């Protein structure tokens, strides 16, 4: 080891407050996970693997049923679009909660929470990583949809961007709540990150209209942004109309759910601070 010879030089810091300082800390968190993702091609492939395989399955089912089914004759890309949009919701949630779980596994949460990184910056980092993971996962499936079936989800245009954003935001809300629950109950609750989202799948109307649900379940469905998004998508694909009412409903609900997600996560962090879990939690 080199002798401790270096003359002491005072620390030279960038400003610690303000938007740029926050952005730099968010970037540091994103960098930490980008290092992990980009150095492992199996990890990258696995992100795109599941959405691509699911899309291929539904695409072949569509090819099989389309000749005898008027609905699919009118909207041959319906199931592919539905699968891809569902995966936006799934990946959006997973991106947020897996970022958190990764910190728990590596026992790095303590290092992060004694650094100048604020909780809101940690959340911003989770959301940024969720966008990246979704872009990789769903982007890969979109490429295969075009290559194999000549189906481009981007033909939906503006409605796609609007629905995409709404589903991502709902995914973030669920991801934050799941992160909070994992922090509260430990890594034993990790399964929530993978399976929790499927609780809303039956009432989101991904593959069928909400009208087929029992009336009481329709009330629950319409309390979720996802149901409005998928109803809106059906209106675009089947009727060629963009229903602004569905978009506004999804937006209003997302504001509520995102606020709830942040509250649950903050409460879990407060609980962890009260019970000494931030330094000691890990695999």
């Amino acid at each position: 080891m080199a002798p401790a010879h270096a003359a002491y030089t005072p620390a030279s810091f960038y400003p610690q407050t303000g938007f740029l300082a926050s952005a730099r800390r968010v970037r540091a968190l994103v960098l930490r996970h980008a290092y992990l993702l980009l150095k492992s091609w199996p990890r990258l492939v696995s992100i795109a693997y599941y959405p691509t395989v699911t899309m291929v399955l539904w695409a072949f089912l569509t090819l099989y049923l389309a000749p005898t089914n008027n609905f699919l004759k009118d909207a041959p890309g319906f199931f592919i679009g539905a699968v891809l949009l569902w995966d936006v919701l799934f990946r959006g949630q997973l991106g947020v909660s897996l970022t958190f779980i990764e910190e728990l596994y590596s026992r790095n949460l303590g290092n992060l929470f004694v650094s100048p990184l604020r909780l809101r910056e940690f959340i911003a980092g989770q959301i940024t990583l969720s966008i990246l993971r979704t872009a990789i996962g769903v982007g890969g499936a979109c490429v295969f949809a075009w290559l194999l079936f000549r189906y481009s989800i981007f033909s939906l245009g503006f409605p796609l961007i609007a629905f995409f954003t709404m589903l991502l935001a709902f995914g973030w809300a669920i991801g934050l709540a799941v992160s909070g629950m994992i922090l509260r109950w430990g890594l034993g609750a990790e399964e929530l990150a993978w399976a929790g989202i499927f609780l809303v799948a039956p009432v989101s109307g991904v593959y069928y209209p909400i009208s087929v649900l029992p009336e009481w379940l329709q009330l629950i469905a319409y309390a979720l942004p996802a149901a409005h998004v998928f109803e809106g998508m059906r209106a675009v694909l089947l009727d060629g109309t963009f229903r602004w009412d569905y978009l506004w409903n999804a937006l209003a609900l997302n504001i509520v759910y995102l606020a709830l997600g942040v509250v649950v996560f903050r409460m879990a962090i407060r609980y962890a601070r009260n019970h000494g879990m931030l330094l000691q939690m890990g695999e």
Partner: protein
Amino acid sequence: MTELPPRSIESPLDAAIAVTNLRKHYGAIEAVKGISFAVRRGTTTALLGGNGAGKTTTLSMLLGVLTPTAGAITVLGTDMLRRRYRVLPRMNFTSPYVDLPKRLTVRENLRVFADLYGIREPKVRIVEIAQQFDLTDILDRPYGNLSAGQRTRVSLAKALLNRPDVLLLDEPTASLDPDIGDRMRTYLERYQRESHCTMLLASHNMAEVERMCDDVIMLRAGVVVDQGSPAQLLERYGRENMDEVFLDIARGRQNEHEVGAGADEITA
């Protein structure tokens, strides 16, 4: 060990860390029972005690990752319970309870923390600290592939990356061989002298405490039971070394020596 001029230990104004009536309950268990102490600027203070004495709980509260049930903590004049983000960039820590991401290389880990602490010219700083901790050859190896001793050195490098004014060290040399442990202590001593950094050290290595620390705070069952300089404690307990003093205090034998008044003597 220090070359700094002697300072009054009684003045809280001179304290880099001031703790007042700090309590922590976990349900019915009271882990820390209203302790008060001050750590002078530019000195190294040991926080000693047996397992379960409340050392890690106290360090966690000082770092802001554990909320006290009651009491006040001031670090560098800043209220840690209300404004910790003002002072966190000037602090750092290392603890066996935390780790670094194992699949990232040493360089990548240090880069992430350099950015989190807002360090200018992070690449230069990483090269510099790697030289100081003999990490140059392993900078591009995954942290998870390193030996326990190498990991400890990386954790210490991370803790000094931002050249902290206050450094909290929980068992910093526990897994190092005597040679590397000695070099680490030498580096920490040198860093402390040059930077006038304040260090609070939790350790079970009494030789380390005797060598590095200006002051010692002894905890038992969540209470400060004695404090003073190593020399004062050795004299007070009539012992040859800090190991024996530790055993006297940890086993509650300080009354036999009619001591313990030190606890009030230096309370802030």
